């Protein structure tokens, strides 16, 4: 019996050794073949196996995508040929040229957004930009962008200088950089302001209006300034990027006047020294981004025609918003939220009861989720809220101050916007998208697109509950 067991045991071992041997041999062969296959194969084929540890199932596997990529390779269009020439030709000073053009169609149930959108919709929003940048020296960059924006009454589409920057890197050491920028600079506030006109960089056609007001965009967008900036490594966690600038804001436009003074007045707003600063902390994997931005904007009014009934006295006003921003990025999700507190303060020299001594604090915030179904299909959902005066959220106190003139207009003191949209990146350079908004309130409507009746001081035709639907096509290079 013992012998039997022994023989069985030994047969176990011998067979197990054989098994193991076979296994190793098989592994060897597989390994060898696969290595050889890799050496013989196209480099792209290797990546099939290399892709195994990459978590996300690539949308490339979809046949539609594959044919698309194939087409684009086989038949390059005129534009892409030109672009390839631009990209592949060695140009002196590392000249780069980029640009974009976007066209939107917007329709609303009531109220006008970027043109006469409530009567059958309008193609009133066109954005185009062209920029060039140059690095004549390793530490010096020069860049400029011309922007054309046609949007309702506020923007005619007349091209204007958006930025023109002289940027010198004062100090650069691995992960720490410091430098200075001089010229017309984009105002760094929040996550989106600097590139708000570039559809590709926005989460939606309409940015959250509570923070990125389109009606005062010229004021917020860029200004003539001197700015110091730095990127510093924060131990091993990430990078803190800070910017601080002394600026002369761009206030000489109708939209800003209408927003700050209630109407387009005969006189002008003066440009006075203002300050702007922002810090954004970003983890090394760029998953978490946290920011804080602040502006201290000063402007004063310069009366021109004292005989006009619309004329004001030489008052001054101060606008000091602070914005907190947070974003979380994962492979599929991007969750973003920003909160702004916006104190306005008018002095007593305007000689106008509506403006003199006015002090109120506005509040805005939004929550937004973006989801990438595939790298080419994205969706977003957002709730965005604006309160012109946070101590009077439904506008009732404001109405009570002048019930005769303001009754029923409490909705102009707030706006709550629920938006949902979808985006299709047809190619990395061409994008289509659509979105729907349901809005309660008219707080961020442009006064130029929705004028008030000068006799009664009331908007001619605005409605509290309204819907907006928009589609957009955008191309960039």
């Amino acid at each position, binding site marked *: 019996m013992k012998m039997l067991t022994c023989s069985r045991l030994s047969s176990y071992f011998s067979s197990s050794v054989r098994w193991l041997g076979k296994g190793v041999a098989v592994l060897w062969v597989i390994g060898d073949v696969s290595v050889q296959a*890799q050496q013989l194969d196209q480099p792209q084929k290797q990546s099939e196996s290399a892709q195994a540890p990459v978590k996300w199932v690539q949308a490339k596997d979809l046949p539609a995508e594959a044919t698309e990529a194939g087409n684009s390779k086989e038949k390059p269009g005129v534009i892409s040929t030109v672009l390839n020439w631009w990209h592949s030709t060695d140009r002196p000073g590392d000249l780069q040229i980029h640009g974009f053009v976007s066209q939107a169609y917007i329709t609303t149930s009531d109220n006008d957004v970027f043109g006469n959108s409530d009567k059958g919709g309008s193609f009133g929003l066109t954005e185009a930009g062209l920029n060039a940048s140059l690095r004549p020296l390793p530490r010096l960059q020069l860049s400029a962008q011309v922007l054309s924006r046609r949007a309702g009454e506020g923007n005619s589409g007349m091209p204007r200088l958006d930025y023109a920057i002289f940027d010198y890197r004062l100090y650069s050491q691995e992960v720490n950089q410091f430098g200075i920028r001089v010229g017309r600079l984009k105002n760094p506030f929040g996550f989106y302001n600097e590139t708000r006109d570039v559809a590709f960089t926005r989460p939606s056609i309409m940015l959250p209006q509570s923070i990125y007001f389109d009606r005062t965009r010229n004021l917020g967008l860029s200004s003539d300034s001197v700015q110091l900036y730095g990127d510093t490594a924060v131990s091993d966690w990430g990078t803190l990027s800070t910017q601080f600038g002394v600026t002369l804001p761009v206030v000489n436009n109708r939209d800003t006047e209408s927003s700050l003074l209630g109407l387009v007045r005969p006189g002008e707003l003066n440009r006075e020294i203002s300050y702007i600063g922002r810090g954004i902390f970003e983890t090394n994997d760029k998953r978490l981004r946290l920011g804080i931005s602040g502006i201290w904007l000063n402007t004063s009014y310069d009366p021109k025609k004292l005989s006009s009934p619309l004329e004001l006295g030489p008052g001054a006003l101060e606008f000091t918003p602070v914005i907190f921003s947070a974003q979380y990025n994962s492979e599929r999700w991007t969750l973003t939220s920003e909160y702004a507190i916006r104190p306005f303060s008018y002095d007593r020299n305007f000689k106008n009861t509506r403006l003199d001594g006015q002090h109120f604090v506005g509040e805005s915030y939004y929550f937004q989720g973006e989801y990438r179904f595939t790298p080419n299909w994205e969706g977003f959902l957002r709730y965005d809220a604006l309160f012109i005066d946070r101590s009077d959220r439904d506008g009732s106190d404001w109405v009570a101050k002048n019930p005769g003139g303001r009754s029923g207009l409490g909705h102009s003191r707030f706006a709550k916007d629920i938006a949902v949209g979808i985006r299709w990146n047809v190619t990395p350079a061409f994008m289509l998208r659509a979105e729907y908004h349901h809005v309660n309130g008219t707080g961020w409507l442009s006064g130029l697109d929705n004028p008030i009746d000068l006799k009664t001081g009331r908007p001619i035709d605005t409605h509290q509950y309204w819907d907006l639907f928009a589609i957009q096509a955008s191309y960039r290079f």
Partner: protein
Amino acid sequence: MNLFHFSLQAQFSRHCFLKTRACLCFALTVCLWVVAAEVRANDHYEIVTNPGVNEKTLSVNSLRSIFSMRLKTWSDGTKIRVFVLSDDDQLHQIVSKEKLNVFPYQLRSTWDRLVFSGTGQAPIKVNSSEEMLARIATTPGAIGYLWRANINENVNVLEIK
């Protein structure tokens, strides 16, 4: 009877053991495959530079800073010129995720912010590995990435710590 019973038991247990072993063997093979695949993934591409670049090693943070277009000059003060493949290219995606530890869409939005705010430049896009190799070999200060099979003596392989 006792003997028969025992041998039956032994046979049964042997059968079980064989089965388990086969399973184990299979699992081991799968494990090795996965490991091999991972090794291949890390092994079959490299960060490469123009031969004129003095750096032979670079920290991951510096590499990320370069591909984020923040770090613009090599330690000797010469320009860094970054070359990339298209956003939807497989190698680009693998390098982004594995070497830089960021998703390709995050790199794209970083570059877009720089280009359209005027505060930086975008990397130079090339259309193929062949073009990448040619451009890096001939452009002073160039950095990019290549499948190992495409690498030749005209470019330097950078070691990433």
